[in-house]
């Protein structure tokens, strides 16, 4: 009835977990609405602000689209992490984590399913908002072409690295640490220079900013929108930093899982 020797890695188990989150998402319209509502509000607010500035300042007229582009890219970073962590939190909320941990599901399969769900949630939230940006402000995110793919991949990698880390913390410490999932990305908002160039920061803080992969993406986006230059060097550096960050996130998750087995946290799953 079951495979006698379960494979080291099973796409079927990843599929089962994706199915689990998809069933949940499609059964709940508030969850679906939440994916689109706030990104749309943010994009509209920043879009109108940019429109106002463009009508009153020469630089902003030249830099048309940087705010809207920044909002949309920031949302990929923020929602990517949140989508990952929320799927994990669903297991805590439903007290289902122990069921998963006694099944043959391996950590790598679990994490891969969460990554797939994070992309799925992002697609559901980003596409309607990107279409709204075209309709309201004539800003076509998809017009960024291959650069968008590089931006997207880099932001997604960062969001997963943070999402894996946050999930590990929640698993180890219970739902008391749940707020981290909602707030942790905001530390990246000032430091990764989403809405302004790195040069604005004091020099010591610039060092911190350049240690964070999303900074390269937002600088790259400004170079593209303002100067019409794609900077592959920035993307390569971002990928290298993301490789380190993702490795650190994955290792911390495994360490926190081991620690959870020691502390009995997997059995509790509560506060």
């Amino acid at each position, binding site marked *: 009835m079951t495979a006698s020797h379960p494979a080291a890695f099973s796409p079927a188990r990843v599929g089962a977990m994706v199915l689990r989150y998809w069933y949940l998402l499609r059964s709940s319209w508030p969850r679906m609405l939440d994916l689109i509502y706030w990104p749309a509000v943010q994009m509209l607010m920043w879009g109108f602000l940019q429109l106002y500035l463009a009508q009153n300042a020469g630089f902003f007229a030249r830099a048309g689209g940087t705010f809207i582009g920044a909002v949309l890219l920031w949302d990929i970073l923020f929602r990517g992490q949140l989508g990952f962590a929320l799927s994990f939190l669903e297991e805590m909320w439903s007290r289902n984590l122990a069921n998963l941990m006694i099944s043959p599901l391996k950590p790598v399969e679990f994490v891969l399913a969460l990554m797939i769900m994070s992309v799925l949630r992002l697609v559901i939230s980003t596409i309607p908002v990107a279409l709204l940006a075209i309709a309201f402000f004539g800003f076509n995110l998809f017009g960024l072409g291959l650069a968008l793919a590089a931006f997207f991949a880099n932001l997604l990698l960062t969001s997963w690295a943070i999402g894996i880390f946050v999930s590990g913390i929640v698993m180890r410490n219970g739902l008391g640490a749940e707020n981290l999932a909602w707030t942790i990305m905001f530390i990246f908002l000032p430091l990764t220079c989403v809405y302004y160039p790195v040069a604005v920061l004091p020099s010591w803080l610039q060092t911190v900013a350049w240690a964070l992969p999303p900074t390269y993406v937002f600088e790259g986006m400004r170079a593209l929108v303002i100067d019409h230059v794609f900077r592959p060097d920035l993307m390569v550096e971002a990928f290298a930093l993301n490789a380190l960050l993702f490795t650190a996130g994955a290792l911390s998750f495994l360490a926190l899982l081991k620690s959870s087995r020691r502390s*009995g946290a997997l*059995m509790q799953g509560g506060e």
Partner: protein
Amino acid sequence: MPAPPAIAVDNLVKVYKQTTAVAGISFTLAPGSITALLGGNGAGKTTTIAMILGLVEPTSGKVAVLGAAMPRQRYRVLHRMNFESPYVEMPRRLTVRQNLKVFAGLYGIADVDGRIAALAGELDFADLLDRSTGKLSSGQRTRVALAKALINDPEVLLLDEPTASLDPDTADWIRAHLDRYRRARGATVLLASHNMVEVERLCERVIIMKKGAIVDDDAPAALLARYGRQNLEQVFLDVARGARETREAAQ
């Protein structure tokens, strides 16, 4: 040569910070046997089961299930065992069918729809398959949780108070099903329970725990004889209140 034990627990200890939950217990369970872990709240039953499942790492000592050391070699055997407890739930928003499909996928079941239909027939919940799991009564939820625990036709089944908060009729029905399953499958069952009727009805061996240690381990009839009692509830009370030690000291 006797068959190797389905579960072997050797000098197992679990200490949480300053609290000793399990204090050096040892036992083995023969394949196809059904055993109760009996004890009051905080006796260490759930922690013992969690260590057997690989959910909790022992502080010291060893656990082996079907020959695999837990938790280190857990992926060698997790597909051959399962667990049910009213304190571990399934996603409430998903329908019963959706939940069982997910777990069937996790356990690598080949004929998912066939297996779900068979379990729904055996456990009498075919009419509930498309209902949200969160909208089931506790009796219905227990039957579905048991279906999840049986979805991979486990050789080793661990149960933590499987009939807690059920009415007597449903509880009796669940016990009968467990007994049938164990006999038909030849499965090894370890059951933590407070329910003495359940233990007397189902189990051929009782391991009594108190404050993390095993204080007695025998067949129900032998325990009744040794304690000079009519039923296991009286034995349980004797153990919980230390009556046997008091009586022996007085003699």
